[in-house]
């Protein structure tokens, strides 16, 4: 349309299409701004925790709180080590001259403390990793197989069984800790990593079965049937055809089970004392020894947050991607 300018019909601006586009752009921007604001609000405590974990003891309790500070690893080192108070009279300066000192020794010596060994927290963290790791693997594995059975085979009393499995989640854990405590003491499972793994596995299993069943139901049976007539056994069909397609579901289930087992507090505080104690119930106990070490507490929380964040981040593609992206049209 190359109409000369003067002859062009008058534009009715109220109905112009580009105006609509402008508006939708505006709403999109508004949404983005809103998202940023919400993210900001949500992340402030996390940021605060991260900042505190990097503060020196003095900065951590400073009033008004310091936003800009000199970062220090005091919190983390304090959390992971046992120290001895050393005064000048006891030869603090001499110890400082020792050429074998590592950087973390120096940091603590500047505070007048000498590192004498690992703290108990290191052992607790190891317990946490073992308990959460093994129980997650077990509950995902059992969940996968039971969900497959529920999804593909005629299971007698299927509905009742599934309900029963789900019902184990209906009581808040804290309600059942006392009976389980008595039970575990009788069975000799009190304060054992094994006992905790069993408990977490069972507790996560309900979740794992239900979640995995949803994912497996989404995979059309025809895939396995095709594999069966193509000359494979049911087990081969499961591993070659079903398993690769459950990856998304497995990833999601793994993350959720891991988060639960890693964060669990109530059972851990009741059913463990020393040997099998995990990290969550031990962080507050830092409170007690030698005044409130905010930097150490924040460091504990940070260190605790990082593994779950890493796993979630690593599996984020699977978590977001749709379940079936296959060749079966429905």
């Amino acid at each position, binding site marked *: 349309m190359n109409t000369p300018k003067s002859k062009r019909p008058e534009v009715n601006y109220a109905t112009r299409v580009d105006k609509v586009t402008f508006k939708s752009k505006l709403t999109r921007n508004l949404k983005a701004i809103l998202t940023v604001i919400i993210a900001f609000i949500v992340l402030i405590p996390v940021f605060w925790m991260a900042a505190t974990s990097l503060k020196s003891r003095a900065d951590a309790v400073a009033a008004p709180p310091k936003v800009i500070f000199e970062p220090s690893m005091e919190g983390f080192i304090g959390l992971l080590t046992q120290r001895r108070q050393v005064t000048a009279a006891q030869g603090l300066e001499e110890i400082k001259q020792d050429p074998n000192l590592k950087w973390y020794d120096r940091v603590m010596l500047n505070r007048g403390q000498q590192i004498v060994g690992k703290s108990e927290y290191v052992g607790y963290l190891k317990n946490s990793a073992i308990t959460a790791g093994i129980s997650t693997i077990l509950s995902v594995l059992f969940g996968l197989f039971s969900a497959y059975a529920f999804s593909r085979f005629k299971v007698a009393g299927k509905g009742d069984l599934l309900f029963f499995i789900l019902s184990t989640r209906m009581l808040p854990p804290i309600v059942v800790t006392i009976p389980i405590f008595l039970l575990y003491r009788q069975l000799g499972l009190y304060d054992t990593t094994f006992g905790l793994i069993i408990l977490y596995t069972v507790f996560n299993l309900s979740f794992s079965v239900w979640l995995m069943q949803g994912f497996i139901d989404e995979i059309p049976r*025809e895939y396995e*049937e095709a594999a069966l*007539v193509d000359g494979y056994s049911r087990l081969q069909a499961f591993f070659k055809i079903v398993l690769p397609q459950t990856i998304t579901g497995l990833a999601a289930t793994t993350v959720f089970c891991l988060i639960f087992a890693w964060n669990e507090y109530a059972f851990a505080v009741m059913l463990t004392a020393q040997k099998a104690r995990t990290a969550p119930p031990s962080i507050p106990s830092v409170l007690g020894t030698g005044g409130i070490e905010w930097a150490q507490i924040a460091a504990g929380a940070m260190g605790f947050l990082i593994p779950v964040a890493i796993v979630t981040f690593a599996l984020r593609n699977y978590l977001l991607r749709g379940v079936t*992206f296959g060749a*079966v049209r429905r």
Partner: protein
Amino acid sequence: MATIELRDVVKKFGDKYAVKPMNMTIQDGEFVVLLGPSGCGKTTTLRMISGLEAVSSGNIFLNGKDVTWAHPSARDIAYVFQFYALYPHLTVRDNIAFPLQAQAVKRDVIERRVKDVSNLLKIKHLLKRRPGGLSGGDQQRVALARALVRHPAAFLMDEPLGALDADFRETMRAEIKALHVAQKATTVYVTHDQIEAMAMGDRIVVMSNASVQQIGTPAEVYHSPTNLFVANFIGSPGMNLVKCHYQGGKLTLPGGSVYVPAEGWQKTLDHQLGDNQTVVLGFRPEAARVSGEPKISADVFLVEMNGSNVLLDLHLDDDNIVRIRTNRGVNYGLGDTINFDLDPQMVRFFNPSTEAALVME
């Protein structure tokens, strides 16, 4: 290649029959179509032959060997699914090679066979892609390639064209038929589309309500249906079925027209019905021959131009409609009265209470 035999095969889901006792022998190299409306048990039958569904009773023989309880993988048959069931996480090449890998075929042999079959089906350019991104027709070709690649004893196909667009379906129909002619492999093909069944089958097994209604060549089921269901189901439109009054060698149609059947039929009707009985007269739309003399008369109420011919919907009376094909050269107006005769070769009779066809004595 293989023969397939079903002996008294039954499938029950709870108390309900999915397939009533079924007997059928499929010859080596034959293309048999299981035809019927949805839910008639045709897919269940196919699944029982494949071993994906267990029989409730009866026996299935493959090449004379009882395979009733053999695992699907042990039967050496290929199954083409309605929705293709291509493995989404594997490439087209791996999909096609998958059945060969089960047999631990050597790598270079697999490579050659995959190449051969992908040349045959013209999907060579797709081998590196994943099935998810292919068109319906290409997915269908890949599914066929996966079935063909290991030279199975028999092919089972469950509505393989059901998910395709109408115009493309005809192309694929011809391709599958051509493949069958070239390979001469025993094939059992399930469809609910009677045109597809007529076009492809050496024999058609018409099923309804879990039981076999008729087994015969396309011509047999078209011209000599064994009962009212088959007569109505086969052909588009189906056979005209008119309840008539028979007395003294004459049929009185609704609307009062009188038709005198051929002598052979008169004897049969006298014999099998006795006197003074109702009978269902059946004739195909193309059996009618419009003529000047008043044999059967009816009023035109719809004219369907089909290109090569014209399909007329005629009112015998207010409740009875028959449809006839006429020459495209003649124009009829709505409400015109038409007189027509029937080709005596194409007239059939059915018992209205048993619904079975009468056989001329």
